[in-house]
């Protein structure tokens, strides 16, 4: 038996297959432990080989984009949290990145550094889950538990900061909900010291594991041209050789000051995407370690005089500008007055390029809040990636694309 199977040539959709008698239709239904939440595949099988795959999504569609037209720019952050629920802070950062671009706000340096640290923690959390789930779907439960143990530490850090573990709804227009304190910084330093050991454990468990490699190498191959043609981004694209990372190409927040590498691979298969994510955890730790030592002091929200955020209670009760600003922000018919314009802003979320196209009509809520969902665009590739493979490769490929149903359906 060869050490690794030869890479599967890129399959093409064939039109004449599904009507043959011996083909069997299998419903890989919305309730299935390996589909990572509710998505449905209708597979046409020739024995165990998949001949055609038709996905059916929309089971988790909750009208997030319609809600974006009703909730205002600070309220909508609670909804945006719930899109990619594995790394919620990054969605908030992405949303407020676009809104602040629309309003023309420049954040304070302290806020930029804190948002960067939170973003990278979210990236570590997302990649740990994806790597752990990749192992879990293929049967390796230990790596999954090592990864989830570390994610508990991240949840504790976020809970220290905002009171909620999972959907902190922490960013606001022009800043953050609260400032952070020394205990948060100490927890992060401890996390940065402790994670590499778990990361090494996962690496030792999986990287040279015969079963894991056999099940992921050569499976779900995506070539570089196809990655670009299909709009892939994030680790899916970088695993196929498209070296594109918005943190370096369009620097935002504090990424311009920090030193880190972009990880890419030419492999194009599930194993390549897994390795890209694993290495990105290490790069994110580098970013966090640098940023947490260099957090600038100063205010975390933009100045009250710029009239974009709700001032803190000290300013509200002790200055007339703070009082006026507080009134303006709280009364529902006043709020912000953005320009009557539209803007597209994108950030490098752990899953890919997460962008928000925000159209404003001059009111406190958006006219249209469109989320460009990386999971949706990656899931569209699944029928092409999976054709010609076996049923047991489906969890491997879905896991490597990191499909999160709430972002898929919104």
């Amino acid at each position, binding site marked *: 038996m060869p050490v690794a199977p030869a890479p599967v040539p890129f399959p093409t959709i064939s039109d004449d297959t599904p009507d043959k008698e011996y083909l069997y239709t299998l419903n890989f239904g919305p309730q299935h432990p390996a589909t990572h939440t509710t998505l449905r595949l209708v597979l046409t099988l020739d024995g165990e080989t998949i001949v055609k795959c038709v996905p059916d999504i929309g089971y988790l569609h909750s009208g997030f984009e319609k809600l974006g037209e009703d909730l205002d720019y600070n309220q909508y952050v609670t909804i945006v949290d719930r899109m990619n629920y594995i790394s919620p802070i990054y969605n908030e950062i992405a949303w407020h990145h676009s809104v602040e671009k629309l309003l023309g706000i420049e954040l304070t340096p302290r806020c930029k550094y804190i948002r960067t640290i939170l973003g990278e923690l979210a990236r570590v959390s997302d990649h740990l889950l994806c790597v752990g789930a990749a192992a879990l779907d293929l049967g390796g439960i230990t790596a999954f538990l090592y990864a989830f143990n570390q994610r508990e530490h991240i949840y504790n850090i976020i809970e220290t900061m905002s009171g909620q573990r999972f959907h902190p709804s922490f960013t606001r227009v022009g800043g953050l909900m609260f400032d952070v304190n020394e205990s948060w910084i100490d927890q992060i330093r401890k996390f940065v010291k402790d994670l590499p050991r778990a990361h090494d454990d996962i690496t030792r468990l999986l990287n040279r594991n015969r079963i894991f490699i056999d099940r992921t190498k050569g499976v779900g191959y995506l070539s570089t041209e196809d990655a670009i043609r299909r*709009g892939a981004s994030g680790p899916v694209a970088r695993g196929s050789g498209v070296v594109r990372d918005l943190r370096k*190409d369009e620097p935002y927040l504090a990424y311009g000051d920090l030193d880190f590498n972009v990880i890419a691979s030419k492999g194009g298969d599930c194993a390549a995407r897994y390795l890209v994510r694993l290495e990105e955890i290490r790069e994110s730790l580098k970013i966090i370690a640098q940023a947490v030592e260099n957090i600038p002091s100063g205010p975390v929200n933009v100045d009250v005089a710029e009239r974009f955020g709700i001032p803190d209670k000290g300013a509200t009760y002790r200055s007339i500008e703070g009082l006026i600003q507080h009134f303006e922000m709280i009364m529902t018919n006043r709020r912000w007055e953005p320009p009557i*314009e539209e*803007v*597209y802003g994108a950030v490098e979320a752990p899953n890919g390029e997460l962008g928000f*196209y925000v159209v404003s009509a001059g009111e406190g809520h958006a006219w249209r809040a469109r989320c460009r969902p990386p999971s949706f665009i990656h899931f569209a590739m699944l029928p092409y990636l999976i054709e010609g493979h076996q049923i047991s490769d489906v969890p491997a490929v879905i896991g490597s694309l990191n499909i999160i149903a709430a972002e898929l359906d919104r």
Partner: protein
Amino acid sequence: MQTFKEALDKQFGEGKFLLQKFRDNNRVIVPAEHLLEVMGVLKSVCGFDMLSDVTAVDYLNYPGAVDRYHVVYVLTNTGTAERLIVKVPVNDPDPAVPSLTGMWIGADWIERECYDMFGIVFENHPDLRRILMPEGFASYPLRKDYPLRGRGERHNFETVLRSDS
């Protein structure tokens, strides 16, 4: 590699399409009949090789709006990280634009979602049907005349009893 302004001027004549710039976004408004040609020029000559997003905005009762819908395409140049937003105005009745699945196969699902949510037909799309809403759904939810809480569809779903099958 020319800038998109030079390439469009060269192909179509000076100032044929309205160009706008806001913050760091460059936008160009293209009528639907020229869309495929413009996209071809942008893809081949200017190097915009990735279609990042296709969406639509419903401008019913928007201050200063002229057309009902704009279909918005976000193009990215993976080599230079440059972005361009192309907007196509469309109107009722029968809003329709040509589909870009011939140039970027990744457009198929995104265009399906745009059709599902707004009812804008993408001509020559290989498989234009609803993607997020269930098949029998009769309205287009993201249009401005569709209310936030819906029209009671949640309570009127058809149920399939075990005795029927």
